[in-house]
């Protein structure tokens, strides 16, 4: 809860600064201003839910105002803000989160058998079912999402699957298995799949992908069968 705030380009001779919002109830108290014009960072621990009444006051050593600006915001929790005394603007300088995750395993289930993707020599007319595992590479629990599209050898889309995992989501370093719907592997040749693994549903980010062969399907070989078996001749060798 809360946010971080600092100032820059404080007027020469400034000695302290402070900020407050929520009608002044949430206040930093006096903080130092350095010769560089930057201040001592305020690590605010009060709740910030979009308040727009933030004000910043900068004073000299006699607490005489050298700079003042009100009605700044909105401010939110878990953000990092920087106020520029020159431009009187409040900027959100929060570092963007780098999401990390991987497609850790891919399998094709066909009837009761399974094979690692890319799979080969899958008998024709089996029922295919894709399993994809996503691994959370972050240090915090993440909600992962998946999208994939399966195409037959003719380039026709045979399955599209997209979902965000349900609670309780995936812990740091853990895996989540996504299972699609069944489709008929009814054409011999090379089937393809495009997969994207996502994080951050609010502003989804592709963290890993796979574009390539799903499997090769071969014409089904029938069970051994004889026909027309007969003795055609017999002779003295």
């Amino acid at each position, binding site marked *: 809860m809360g946010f971080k705030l600092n100032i820059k380009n404080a007027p020469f001779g400034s000695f302290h600064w402070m900020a407050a919002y929520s009608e002044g109830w949430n206040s930093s108290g006096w903080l130092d201003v350095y010769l560089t014009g930057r201040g001592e960072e305020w690590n605010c621990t009060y709740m910030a839910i979009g308040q727009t009444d933030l004000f910043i006051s900068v004073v000299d050593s006699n607490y005489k105002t050298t700079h003042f600006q009100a009605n700044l915001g909105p401010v939110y929790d878990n953000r990092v803000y920087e106020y520029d005394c020159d431009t009187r603007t409040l900027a959100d300088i929060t570092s963007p989160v780098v999401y990390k995750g991987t497609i850790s395993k891919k399998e094709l289930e066909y009837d009761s058998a399974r094979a690692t993707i890319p799979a080969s020599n899958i008998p024709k007319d089996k029922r295919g079912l894709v399993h994809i595992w996503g691994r959370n590479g972050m240090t915090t629990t993440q909600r992962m999402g998946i999208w994939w599209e399966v195409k037959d050898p003719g380039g026709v889309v045979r399955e599209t699957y997209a979902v965000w995992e349900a609670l309780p989501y995936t812990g740091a370093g853990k895996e989540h298995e996504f299972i699609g719907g069944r489709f008929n592997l009814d054409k011999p040749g090379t089937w393809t799949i495009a997969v994207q693994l996502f994080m951050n549903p609010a502003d989804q980010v592709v963290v890993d992908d796979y574009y390539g062969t799903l499997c090769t399907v071969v014409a089904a070989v029938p*069970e051994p069968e004889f026909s027309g*078996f*007969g*003795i055609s*001749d017999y002779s003295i060798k």
Partner: protein
Amino acid sequence: MQSLYQRQVEGILGALGVAPPGKLTVMKGETVRMTVAFNYRGTGISVTLRCSIGKRTLGVFDEHAYKTKTITLPQSAGFLPYEAFADIPTTAISPESNYDIEAKITEYASATLVKIDNVIDVLGAPEFQDFRITDYSKV
């Protein structure tokens, strides 16, 4: 009993092969080559061809001589024609007429077993027939 002429003719026919239900006469100790033809489809497999000579009594085949042979069949989605043979020694067979023959793929006997009755005569010791004086004259 056959004449020598008959025996010679059948010997020639035998060398060429007798088609069922023709009769083949062999001398005890000779080898009978039995040829089978069939169609096969399915996975690649090795199977056992078993060709036999024997006597069938009340539907029960008493096998007197046989030969097995391993046949390798490649994978095929559709039926393909094949021919195979086995050479059956007749050393252990008693000289007798009207032997029956059988052939089958051992592993798929119910689908392949074929039987032909009364097609092999086996001759034993040297045998004369109709020996007589046909003429006498001064030389």
